[in-house]
């Protein structure tokens, strides 16, 4: 069953000046990990941001085509906030809020009216543990999130998103600032999460895509070149450009 389905999606930045996505067609199956790969600037983040309508916030963005979540057009008659509760997102650049570590994690729940201290404490601890950050910050939950290292901030943002237990989790290079150990933990987390949730991940690491994803889509300059079962895409790519890229002799 497809959780998300993208049909003929075109996206333009700068009021049409920059055609960033060219007629993308992609189905994202439920409870699987779909990886988006491709060279920097090819449109991966742009596509990801279409899935929870984050691009609405950028001025001069024009979108046409169809994106459905559970068969429902997300650009029509949809309450955007509810959509984004269902479709959570971890941004490419860690963006902690100017508040304490604890409040950062509790933020999303509080936004839904959860005020119960016990629930909040539980969720905060659980999320931080899942994101492999708990041990490092458990003694400074009340200190500002800005005092965290780059990788810690990235894990904080992951924890903040999974605290909401969304249906679909969009992750834009969630381990880019992480060391191998932390990366391993996040990858394990993704494997656990996919039993319940649908995950779309942007990654630059072929190894990572191979390790954790069920399906992979390869982008090049705004085009979706090829998408397939991860094993197939990496072993027997249909397109020359894909082969070149995954074998590392492209460009």
């Amino acid at each position, binding site marked *: 069953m497809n959780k998300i389905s993208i049909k003929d999606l075109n996206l333009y930045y700068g009021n049409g000046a920059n055609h960033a996505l060219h007629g993308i067609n992609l189905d994202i199956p439920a409870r699987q990990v779909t990886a988006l790969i491709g060279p920097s600037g090819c449109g991966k983040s742009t596509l990801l941001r279409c899935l929870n309508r984050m691009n609405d916030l950028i001025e001069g963005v024009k979108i046409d085509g169809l994106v459905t979540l559970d068969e429902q057009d997300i650009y029509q008659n949809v*309450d955007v906030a509810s959509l984004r*509760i*269902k479709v959570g997102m971890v941004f490419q650049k860690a963006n902690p809020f100017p508040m304490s570590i604890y409040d950062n994690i509790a933020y999303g*729940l509080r*936004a*839904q009216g959860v005020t119960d201290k016990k629930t909040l404490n539980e969720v905060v601890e659980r999320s931080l543990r899942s994101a492999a950050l708990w041990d490092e910050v458990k003694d400074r939950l009340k200190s500002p999130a800005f005092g965290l290292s780059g990788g810690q901030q990235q894990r904080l943002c992951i924890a903040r998103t999974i605290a*909401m*237990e*969304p*249906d679909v989790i969009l992750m834009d290079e969630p381990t880019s600032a992480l060391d191998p150990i932390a990366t391993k933990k996040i990858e394990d987390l993704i494997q656990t999460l996919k039993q319940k949730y649908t995950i779309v991940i942007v990654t630059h690491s072929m190894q990572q895509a191979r390790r954790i994803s069920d399906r992979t889509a390869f982008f090049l300059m705004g085009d979706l070149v090829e998408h397939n079962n991860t094993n197939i895409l990496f072993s027997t790519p249909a397109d020359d450009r894909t082969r070149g890229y995954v074998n590392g002799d492209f460009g």
Partner: protein
Amino acid sequence: MSYTLTRARKIQDTAAKALIWLGASLTVGFLLWILWYILSNGLAHVNWEFVSSDYTSIGEASGIWPMIVSTIYMVLASIGVAAPIGIMTAIYLTEYAKPGSKLVKVIRFCTESLAGIPSIIFGLFGLTFFVGVLGLGFSVLSGALTLSILILPVIIRTTEEALMAVPQSYREGSYGLGAPKIYTITRLILPSAMPGIVTSIVLSIGRIIGESAPVFLTAGMVARIPESLMDSGRTLTVHLYKLTQELYTIHEWNQAYATATVLIVVVLVINTITKLIASRFNKATY
């Protein structure tokens, strides 16, 4: 469990949104009401002759051209003195002084406190100090110096806030490139803080144009085009003040409203020009 938007949240949201619209409507409502009040009474009495001719008390001519000119002089001179001092002070406080130091706190405390001193006290001070002690006499210069002190707190504090809101990562990036401090400030930080600085200037312009007592106590009220900064001049507001304090005839009423109408246009024009000038400095694109 996956969270969904609860009904209660939705209601709260709608309520909050309604409140915001209500607040904004109240403001706009007041604004329209006051504008309508002024324009409906004044517009009919504004004509080219009124705007362009001189003013005499004998009643030969009752134009307001000298007042328009004096007002513009006053704005230029006051902003010319206060803006550099105020902005530089704010720069010193945010970029040079040690963050959170006593000095910063003391200066901030002083400026905020003095912002509440009634303007007439500034006027009396100007009358004693600039007009008297410094011997500048009743002149646009005395007025401008007095008003500069009056608006200084607003410029300092608002600019300071704007500077503090500039992301630290810009400073890091610039200093990391070895850019000199002064270059970083003029080319990166000030342009990024431009919206806040413009706000402070526009608010100050409003203050300069809108004050009466501190102006006539220092710049006087001679209804003639000042030939230099050392001449006395009557601003539009002082003129309006005089008209409203001692209204004798219906003609003076009409004049008062017409003056207020012209004043609004003058404020609009000066604000627009200010923003145009500022936008030329503001190379930063968002």
